[in-house]
């Protein structure tokens, strides 16, 4: 037999779980009601069994039919017809649909316009960090189209040591409307260098680092950006002389 306090505690947890479940269930019910409904105005649109053009077409929706738009995966929308048939329709096919009050819907494709007005960018870069292979994952937030802040993590894996570095940067993009848009950045961070275990053991180093960089974004297609950059790091070591490190890297990014 459990002590009363513990039983109370369990009851409270069970009650909380029930509340959460109920909230979830009502959320789902609400979602059911608020699905967007559009009217097909093309002669017909094709419904695929999955969210890619490789999946077979199993149903055709005719002009004038009302459809509910349920979810989206990449450029594909799952729709439900009045007869409860479900399938996936490409965005291009939904572009000619109308709202219930007869106006044009706004199913826009991701294009260079989206690239010019992007808010977020997440990317992966790889390159050469003074002889060591480096992997960088970064996230950028655009305050304005010409000014951005960035947080990045870099792992440089060399033959004799490996470094982990975190950086915060502020970047200027003077020509945000160009497809090939250069940028300049200034940043500061921290670098932790660990010598290889197979070498004679030396102490790990933990140093502040500042950097200047120059690079360019190149819009490829859809949500893809190619990025190339050069970084010059100044590592403020605890020894007498500061260290200077050059890094070249390139990679891909997606934007939102």
């Amino acid at each position, binding site marked *: 037999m459990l002590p009363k306090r513990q039983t109370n505690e369990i009851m409270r947890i069970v009650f909380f779980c029930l509340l959460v479940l109920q909230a979830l269930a009502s959320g789902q019910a609400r*979602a059911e009601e608020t699905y*967007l409904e*559009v009217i097909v105005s093309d002669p017909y649109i094709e419904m695929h*069994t*999955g*969210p*890619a*053009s*490789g*999946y*077979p077409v199993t149903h055709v929706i005719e002009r004038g039919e009302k459809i509910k*738009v*349920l*979810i*989206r*995966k*990449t*450029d*594909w*929308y*799952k729709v439900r017809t009045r007869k409860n048939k479900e399938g996936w329709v490409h965005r291009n096919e939904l572009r000619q649909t109308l*709202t*219930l*009050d007869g106006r044009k*819907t*706004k*199913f*826009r494709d991701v294009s260079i316009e989206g690239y010019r007005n992007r808010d977020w960018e997440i990317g*992966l870069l*790889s390159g050469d960090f003074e002889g*060591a*292979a480096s*992997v960088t*994952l970064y996230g950028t937030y655009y305050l304005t189209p010409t000014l951005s802040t960035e947080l990045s993590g870099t*792992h440089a*894996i060399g033959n004799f040591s*490996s470094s982990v570095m975190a950086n915060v940067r502020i970047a200027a993009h003077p020509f945000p409307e160009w497809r090939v848009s250069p940028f300049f950045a200034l940043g500061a961070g921290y670098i932790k260098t*660990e010598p*290889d*275990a*197979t070498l004679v053991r030396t102490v790990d180093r933990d140093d502040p680092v500042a950097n200047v960089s120059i690079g360019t974004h190149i819009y490829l297609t*859809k*949500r*893809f950006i190619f990025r190339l950059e050069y970084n010059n790091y100044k590592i403020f070591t605890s020894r007498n002389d500061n260290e200077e490190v050059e890094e070249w890297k390139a990679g*891909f990014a*997606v934007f939102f």
Partner: protein
Amino acid sequence: MESRLCRLFLTGAHTTFLALLMLSMTDIHAAEPLEKKTEQIILPELERREIKQAAIDAEDFEFGIFAGALSIEDFGVNASVGARLTYHVTEDFFTELSVGVSKASETSYEALLGNVQLLSDDERDYIYYNLALGYNLFSGEAFFGKSAFNSDLYLIAGIGNTNFANDDHFTWSIGAGYRFIPKDWYAIHIDFRDHIFNSDILGADKQTHNLEINAGISFFF
């Protein structure tokens, strides 16, 4: 007399001005209802709904866990587990971040000699991360009995790091996988990967190929 006339005139002018002002004001007031008449009396009760893409729930992300076997070159085949986060950029391309762990067993040299230990227990931990770009080569229906299910066969390549024997190794990963999608919200994966890195654990620097096969489940959100 003159001043009286003047006052009379002024009062008259004053009154006229006031009268005119009042008239003009009433004129304005009178004009308003006329305008109102031209407005629509019956407003159509239409629900104006803006259709924006953001209002539709997007399920471009996928999170999954997996378990399988990893052949660590020279150190036998070992159990491995991990997790991955996928972002589907287009219907064809996706990016994936994966993390996996395993533990190396003994080399055949250690097994034969019995009392020799090349690596300490701690150094046998094998941890990797990988950032990759994938391409859905064949998207289509797979038939299981009489039911049809969605599935993708994909190729994947990426870079990352492997921490093994307490050392970091820059690692290339290439592979292929099969995504079986019974419902829109979850998928079952089978994956083959080759993790390639240079290692000097056994003395000379050499390229090692570490093959992994695993199965997992993932959820779209």
